[in-house]
């Protein structure tokens, strides 16, 4: 009742809420981004996604050279919801990709990078010198490719070197994407922060497997893959809550967002923006506008004028 009165009043005196948000130095019109690896290999598609309501697009994780990735099957739909993928970081390589996005004018593009050693990251970043890049995201958390991703994220010393090198190479903001590996992800976060990282994306997919009972074998060609989508939301949300409770660092929540409520939960837990991937497979790209609308209505109802008004609120209780 109080609430009702309050927001009725609110709609008279308040301006329309804004979806704009910032993650440290990164300014976005809208808080919902496309996560890395999803539809992320062509500028035309990026433009389309941006028009559809994505606040930014993160590219497929790029390596120094083109990678074919694993043979199919590379993706598996879990019966109760969610996906397990082992695409194997197939990507056209940083140099090819830089050419693809050279002509980008409009889209906030976050370039995701994978590599095993600091120098690879350095070389790749130089490729993008002539591109409009909103931020770099270091993929320290792919759970199904050897020598990169989680195997890097699980090695604190290497994380330190990579982040330091990257921060010395570019003035563009740098995000570290973490996930659940064999060492504690909060240690990776901590060392990334010490080494000067600008923001954290949490989390990547969670290592998983699917077995077919008829043919009695793992379905993905790589056997193991990463679980994404609705099943991992409560886990991802927990990570965001834990990071934001422990560190003062801008956070991008990622993992299982498929409704505006999910997005708001991530804001309340302490993330300033969110990424989504699997929901595109379930609801196609209309999902961005749908979630944006839901967030706006929620903000109107609660009387918020900006996303930041709700970031971290759940920790106050």
């Amino acid at each position: 009742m109080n609430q009702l009165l309050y927001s009725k009043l609110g709609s008279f005196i308040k301006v329309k809420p804004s979806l704009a948000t910032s993650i440290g130095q990164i300014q976005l019109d809208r808080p919902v981004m496309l996560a890395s690896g999803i539809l992320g290999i062509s500028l035309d598609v990026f433009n389309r996604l941006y028009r559809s309501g994505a606040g930014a697009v993160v590219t497929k994780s790029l390596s120094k050279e083109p990678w074919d990735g694993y043979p199919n099957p590379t993706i598996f739909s879990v019966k109760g919801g969610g996906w397990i993928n082992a695409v194997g970081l197939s990507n056209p390589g940083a140099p090819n990709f830089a050419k693809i996005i050279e002509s980008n004018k409009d889209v906030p593009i976050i370039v995701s990078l994978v590599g095993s050693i600091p120098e690879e990251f350095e070389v790749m970043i130089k490729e993008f010198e002539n591109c409009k890049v909103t931020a770099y995201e270091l993929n320290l958390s792919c759970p199904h490719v050897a020598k990169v991703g989680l195997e890097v994220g699980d090695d604190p010393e290497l994380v330190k070197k990579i982040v330091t090198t990257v921060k010395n190479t570019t003035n563009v903001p740098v995000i570290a994407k973490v996930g659940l590996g064999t060492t504690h992800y909060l240690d990776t976060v901590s060392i990334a922060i010490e080494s000067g990282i600008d923001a954290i994306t949490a989390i990547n997919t969670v290592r998983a497997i699917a077995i077919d009972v008829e043919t009695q074998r793992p379905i993905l060609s790589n056997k193991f893959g990463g679980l994404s989508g609705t099943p991992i939301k409560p886990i991802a949300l927990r990570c965001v809550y834990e990071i934001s409770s422990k560190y003062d660092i801008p956070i991008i929540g990622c993992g299982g967002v498929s409704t505006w409520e999910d997005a708001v939960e991530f804001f309340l837990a302490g993330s300033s923006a969110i990424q989504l991937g699997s929901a595109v497979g379930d609801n196609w790209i209309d999902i961005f506008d749908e979630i944006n609308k839901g967030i706006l209505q929620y903000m109107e109802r609660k009387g918020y004028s900006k996303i930041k008004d709700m970031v971290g609120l759940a920790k106050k209780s």
Partner: protein
Amino acid sequence: MQRNHNHPTIVTIEKVIDETPTVRTLVFSDEVMSNILPGQFAMVWIPGINELPMSVMISEESGKAAFTVRRHGPASTGLFNVKVGGQIGIRGPYGNSFDIKKGKLLLVGGGTGLVPMMRLLTFVKSTDDVTVLIGAKSKDEVFFEDLTNSLLKNNPHKVIVSTDDGSYGQKGLVTDLVEKLVDETHFDAVYTCGPEIMMYKIVHSAHSRGIFVQASLERMMKCGVGICGSCCVGEDLVCKDGTVFDGQHLFSNKEFGYFHRNKAGVLENY
């Protein structure tokens, strides 16, 4: 339990038909796949080998469907080699389908691109006047000619085969034949599926004459559900926005007929 169409359903191959030395049709029972629309496809898992997108072939027996596969790289060869009794996993159907017009129709299929054309034929009205062009390299590679005639036995129809080397039917490229046909006759619609260069020329021939034309595209596909991005053609995703596109739309697509992407996603010229 209810079937989740994204989840592979295991089916058993019941019959294998050799169409040509390099093309086989594998028949299986599956109510869902037996009823899909022309242009839709399935993702086909060959356990231990690969998974690949396949148009779903019709079967004469109800409740059954098939795949007609050309032996090519490891994946298609794996499917080609599945024997009677072998198990494969299928998910889908995925994708949109052809808009089925009435009147004078022209269908042009190249190679296994004939598969969606055969299903399209099961949707034409008996009053439609249907011309089917079958393109092949040589006599050896011609298939589905008898099937086409039998599917059209109640229609005014014409089935024309052309081979590049003239070893059977008319000699020459199927695209030249199309150019001739659309000049001679006013078609109400043209439908095509096959190699992209072929489709590109056909779309051009028809569209430039103001004829309604649709093509079913093929691209490298990993997920089939609009997640991985590997099937993109310009801003279109073949698995979600296609496989069927209007000539009108294709004309504004800078990549159609010129580029495709390899497994790493690198753009390559046709």
